[in-house]
């Protein structure tokens, strides 16, 4: 299974670590493009990672000739703790997949998945026009 990541995801240094219930676990290394204040991952990079994880989980639900355009409607990110100088992982969960709307969640963590650095929920429009 190949998962195509868009230019923005590659700019963040993202790669697919493994699959989890069909959803890619994305890996973001600690490198200059994601650094915010010294020693910490930028909140915007974490938000971008969470959105990419959520989108990738949704994208993985479509196969064959079914390739709808996926348009973000909104996202809400909660930041729980500072993300430090090490790699961050994130995975998305498709909470509900309708014909036109998908409800998604995503979680990002570093050493301990039970201690997330940030989580997000998203609504995405599924556009088949």
């Amino acid at each position, binding site marked *: 299974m190949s998962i195509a990541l*868009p*230019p*923005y995801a590659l700019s963040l240094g993202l790669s697919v670590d493994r699959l989890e219930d069909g959803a890619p676990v994305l890996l973001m290394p600690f490198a*200059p493009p994601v650094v915010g204040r010294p020693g910490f991952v930028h*909140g*915007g990079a974490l938000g971008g990672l969470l959105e990419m994880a959520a989108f990738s989980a949704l994208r993985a639900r479509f196969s064959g000739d079914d390739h709808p355009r996926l348009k973000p409607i*909104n*996202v809400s990110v909660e930041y729980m703790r500072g993300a430090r100088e090490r790699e961050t992982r994130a995975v998305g969960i498709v909470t509900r997949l309708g014909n036109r709307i998908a409800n998604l969640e995503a979680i990002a963590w570093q050493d301990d998945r039970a201690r997330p650095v940030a989580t997000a929920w998203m609504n995405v429009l599924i556009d088949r026009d």
Partner: protein
Amino acid sequence: MAQTEWPTFDPARFIEALAGRHHSGLLDLRYERHGTDWVELSIPYAAHLVGDPESGVLASGPILAMMDMATSMAIWVKGGRFRPQATLDLRVDYLRPAAPGNRVIGHGECYRVTRSVGFVRGQAHDGDPDDPVAHVVGTFMFMDSMA
């Protein structure tokens, strides 16, 4: 814990100091202007920030990151000083895709500051402020007011 006295906050110099470095460098984040309780930043259109190669539309992440910065800095201009703070939450409504090729301008405003929390809101547009691409609301927690 004694409160640290932070220097007067200058948003243009703050962005200048980050220029070309770290996440701000990836976005090529630029200072536009500011008022007593707001800051405007911008990101030029760039192929490496695209989220959908078919349409060439920018990913939503760079807009989220710019609005995180613009709203965060709005708290510092309102207070007149830099203070260490952390984003608690940030909600973004993506009203429409930004037009490929256009730079995106982010206007962040701080509308309330309490002892521990700064409340912010803002909008992003790609040329016409009356036709925004995104609307945001968020909160920041001050790290120097923690017991």
